[in-house]
């Protein structure tokens, strides 16, 4: 049982990044999703886009080499790479809505079996933080989610229907959590890959929606 640990953020990011296809334009949400850029297959060309106006930017700046006027959408200092381009905010979101982003990876409070995404406001709290999430959720060709499998209190985040206010209906296609990789199909959640040492029943017990366990379910993969 030594290996029976929830998946690390790094493992989730690695797994999500395996889905990025050569030539894709990728938008990474604030927080965990930014880790994906550490794990992209070296032979795949990925263009990172940031909704504050960057196209084709580089990794996080190391301390002491930050440019105070070069940040990604999470406010992190990044470095330019050859071929970078800068847009204003309207043009940056124009390209997102127009479908030029192949995938956005977002964090979430909840994801529902119908693909609903909830990540901008906790019910009962006044006000919220949308940022670019609603535009990305409806504009990107693929919406992938990375999140803890349950809340700190143990409540499931993978649910039949979102209890939290939704960001966009029916948009999520793939979810990586600390317990596995879940595909959203017309029939609901399919458990594609499972964290090492866990059983499907254990994962189902921690989940708020019916999981389909296909015959070809496998252990959670990473590339590195």
């Amino acid at each position, binding site marked *: 049982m030594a290996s029976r640990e929830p998946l690390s953020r790094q493992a989730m990011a690695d797994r999500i990044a395996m889905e990025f296809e050569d030539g894709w334009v990728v938008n990474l949400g*604030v927080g965990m999703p930014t880790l994906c850029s550490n794990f992209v297959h070296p032979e795949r060309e990925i263009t990172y886009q*940031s*909704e*504050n*106006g*960057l196209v084709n930017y580089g990794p996080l700046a190391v301390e002491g080499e*930050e*440019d*105070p*006027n*070069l*940040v990604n*959408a*999470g*406010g992190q*200092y990044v470095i*330019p790479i050859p071929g970078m381009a*800068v*847009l*204003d*905010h*309207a043009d*940056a*979101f*124009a390209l*997102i*809505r127009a479908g030029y982003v192949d995938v956005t990876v977002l964090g979430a409070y909840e994801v529902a079996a119908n693909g609903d995404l909830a990540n901008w*406001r*906790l019910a009962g*709290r*006044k*006000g*919220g*933080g*949308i*940022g*670019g*999430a*609603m*535009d990305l*959720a*409806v*504009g990107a060709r693929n919406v992938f989610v990375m999140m803890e499998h349950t809340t700190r209190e143990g409540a499931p985040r993978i649910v039949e229907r979102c209890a939290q*206010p*939704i*960001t*966009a*209906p*029916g948009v999520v296609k793939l979810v990586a959590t600390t317990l596995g990789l879940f595909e959203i199909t017309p029939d609901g959640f399919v458990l594609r890959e499972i964290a090492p040492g866990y059983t499907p029943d254990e994962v189902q017990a921690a989940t708020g929606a019916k999981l389909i366990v296909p015959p070809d379910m496998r252990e959670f993969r990473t590339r590195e």
Partner: protein
Amino acid sequence: MKNKTFESFEAAVADIPDGSTIMFAGFAGPGTPRNLIAALLAQGASGLTIISNTPGRWADSDIVDLKVLVDAGRVRKAVASFTAAPHPSMSGVFAELYEAGEIEAELVPQGTLAERIRAGGAGLGAFYTPAGVGTELAEGKEVRSFDGRDYLLELPLRADYAMLRAHRADALGNLQYVHTQRNFGPIMARAARITIVELDLPIVAAGEIDPDHVHTPGIFVDRMVVVPADAIQETVRNG
């Protein structure tokens, strides 16, 4: 030639009346007109409607941004893509005033915010965007289908003033921004009646900026102040 150069931030904001609607550029730091905000705080205008990506930082900080106007009770209403801190553990005066109903807020998806500002500076009556369809933000808004997809009707935003920070300018007010300093600058400059700019670098003569590489033409710029060495510079923050 009309002189657009002001000697001080104080002079550039001196006539702004109570109740003004002001757009503030800036995203996560770059492009934030910190010196103009400080001058506006000192000037005292109140009852302001602010249009910006956020109403300032959520955490306590000695960095000047819109938080100083909120904390001083100068803001009546905020139009922004964040009206609560990213995490419930953060709080602050904005959240308190907003929860207490003492500040008004209009929460707008960031792309819709940018597009509404762009529409305000493009003379359009309204537009339809897919962002927000099927969410609680669609409540009370017209939903309409085009080509089989649903969109929300959104209205333009305009302002009495826009404040922004740019990298350099010529004497006519032609502006260039550096990297992500650009963000809301070009669209806000067009959507406001009076645009006030603080500048990283000294103003150059007309003709010194390549016409193909002007980001904001001078016809949109009314007042400029060069940031002195001892004023607030955009610096690298931690966290």
